[in-house]
């Protein structure tokens, strides 16, 4: 029954494509009204060669601000759905190192964190894997540097705030997968991720409001020329850079936060 619905819907859509312009037509209605203006005026007005970044962060900056808010809301929604506060008396697993793989189960009390003889392991214990840990340790610094390169070079090549932020988040998730979730939580705790995501949205909206304070329109970066001391065209380019940094920070923090909540079912004590 559902198959008939799907086939019927597909047939109606196919019938509707008879009126569409052919593929690759330069005179099609999608390419004739606003976009020649963006292509021709991008360098004289903003001096940014990557047209997509210029349109995304400057000409259509209002949309991007609300998109950043949408990502932040998704992080908050995931947090509220899954997070459980831990009740203290529960079973913890420890492993006695000198005598090999001796597993011990205790209830309630816990052993000291930095004892040299016992280490804490997860419920589904995977053994210490040297290859994955060493490879991840070698790759992660290069991933972080590449992500920062992508964020700051969004003006001259493909890239920008979103792509760099996602790669930053992916580097931290790689660290959380190859080691365990608790050591990743020590490096970037949940509270730091939440605060960082809010700070990203604040940077974006704050730049717009700052332009309001300088007697210009909201998100009109040309007004920053008096603060930065350059002509208005370069000021727009710098305004785009500041805004991309805010977007990258929010995206990174929300990706890490969603991973923390999903992979530990909300309890934040054991991961993949």
């Amino acid at each position, binding site marked *: 029954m*559902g*198959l008939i*619905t*799907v*086939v019927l*819907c*597909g047939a109606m*859509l*196919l019938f509707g*494509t*008879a009126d*569409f312009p*052919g*593929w*690759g*037509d*330069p005179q*099609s209605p*999608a*390419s004739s009204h*606003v*976009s*020649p203006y*963006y*292509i*021709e005026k*991008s*360098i004289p007005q903003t001096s940014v*060669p*990557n*047209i*997509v970044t210029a*349109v*995304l962060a400057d000409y*259509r900056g209002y*949309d*991007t601000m609300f*998109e950043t808010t*949408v*990502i932040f*809301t*998704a*992080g908050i*929604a*995931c947090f509220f*759905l*899954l997070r459980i506060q831990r009740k203290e008396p529960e079973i913890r697993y420890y492993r006695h190192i000198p005598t090999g793989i001796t597993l011990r189960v205790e209830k309630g009390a816990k052993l000291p964190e930095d004892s040299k003889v016992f280490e804490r392991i997860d419920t589904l214990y995977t053994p210490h894997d040297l290859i994955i840990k060493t490879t991840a340790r070698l790759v992660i610094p290069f991933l972080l540097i590449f992500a920062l390169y992508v964020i700051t070079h969004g003006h*001259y*090549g*493909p890239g920008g705030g*979103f792509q760099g932020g996602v790669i930053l988040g992916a580097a931290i998730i790689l660290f959380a997968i190859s080691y365990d979730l608790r050591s990743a939580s020590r490096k970037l705790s949940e509270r730091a991720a939440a605060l960082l995501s809010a700070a990203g949205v604040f940077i974006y909206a704050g730049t717009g409001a700052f332009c309001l304070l300088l007697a210009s329109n909201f998100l009109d970066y040309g007004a920053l020329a008096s603060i930065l001391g350059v002509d208005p065209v370069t000021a727009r380019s710098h305004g785009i850079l500041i805004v991309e940094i805010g977007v990258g920070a929010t*995206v990174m923090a*929300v990706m890490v936060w*969603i991973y923390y*909540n*999903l992979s530990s*079912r909300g309890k934040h004590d054991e991961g993949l």
Partner: protein
Amino acid sequence: MDDILFILISKYNYWGYIILMMVGLYAMIIKKNLVKKIIGMSIMQTAIIFFYVSIGVKKNATIPIITRGHNNAADIVRAADYINPLPHVLMLTAIVVAVATLGVALALAIKVYRHYDTLEEDEIHDFLKNQAK
């Protein structure tokens, strides 16, 4: 006959988009497992993004990044030389919204599993019906 063949060859991106969207719609309606439905939703989202990107293609045009000559002023930039950048901008927003929706949908699936101990839609339905009696 020649006309139909011409339509088939010159517009095959629309055909690809319609087939993909129908695959996604089929998965969302017919399949009973929740994770399969979420995969179908994601397939539908990427199919729509494919449609929008394929609208902006122009023949013999290059990617929308302006490279400068040796002097610092750019040469005359003709709009017919570069691909339409406007659908790319809209689709960047769409991709990021898609991944945010995916995160929330998977969180909901985990919560459903925690409550009912199953991910199949008909078992959850029977459970709710028995609970209502």
